[in-house]
């Protein structure tokens, strides 16, 4: 049983992706899920994955916060809700609730559960040192799935290697 590598038109073999290093920088529901889905998808394919949470992306891995992440209903033209309406009280909760219901039917876990699942799958999760300092946080503020707090330099170092890619979300 042999599996042939996909080929470019030039005939050169495509270098497979062996590792992804995903940066999650936004704290809204729609800002966090794509990075988590890509990290989980990488592990399911046997690709190594590091996830680096920075700025408001840290909301995804902060204790007491990651169960309450909402869709941004203001400044989000893709939702097609007029900005003035999007800012009404309860709007963000309502849209979030609708989206969560749909995701449940697709078996997409809530963010807190998804983060733990990704850690269990062997991906490594890190918080950004600069952001941690800026928001006066400590390792204990993060869920157990977060391995450690690392610098940008550490991140680039671990992102090295052939077939390794950095994905910013």
């Amino acid at each position: 049983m042999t599996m042939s590598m996909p080929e470019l038109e030039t005939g050169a073999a495509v270098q497979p992706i062996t590792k992804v290093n995903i940066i999650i920088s936004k704290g809204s529901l729609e800002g966090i899920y794509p990075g988590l889905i890509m990290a989980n998808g990488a592990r399911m394919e046997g690709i190594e994955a590091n996830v680096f949470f920075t700025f408001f992306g840290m909301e995804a891995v902060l204790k007491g916060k990651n169960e309450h992440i909402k869709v941004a209903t203001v400044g989000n033209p893709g939702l097609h809700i007029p900005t003035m309406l999007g800012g009404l009280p309860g709007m963000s909760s309502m849209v979030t609730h609708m989206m969560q219901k749909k995701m449940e039917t697709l078996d997409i876990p809530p963010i807190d559960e998804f983060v733990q699942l990704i850690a269990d799958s062997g991906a490594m999760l890190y918080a950004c040192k600069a952001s941690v300092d800026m928001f006066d946080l400590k390792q204990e503020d993060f869920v157990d799935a977060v391995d450690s707090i690392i610098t940008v330099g550490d991140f680039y170092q671990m992102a090295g290697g052939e077939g390794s890619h950095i994905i910013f979300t």
Partner: protein
Amino acid sequence: MPTMTLNDAVLELDAEGFLADANQWNEGVAEAIARENGIPVLTEDHWKVIRYMRDTWFASGQAPTIRSLGKESGVDVKTLYKLFPKGPAKLAAKIAGIPKPHGCI
């Protein structure tokens, strides 16, 4: 179409080495695919996952999600990745003789 031969039976495969017909699968086929992919012996935990994947696929036409595998196959997510280091999408589905999962989750 690529094929694999096992005990004189010729099995058709897709381009990535997944069985073309899940009904051609049997335990011997699973063991042969596992060996070729670096798993010399299938343990009881491997079989739990393989059976769950096949049951789900035959019942719904889709491979199980990682979440349901972790909750319902009888093997937790950590163990699942130890059993199938190349991941449930690639390796467990291949050994279970079902098509490569098309879902993202």
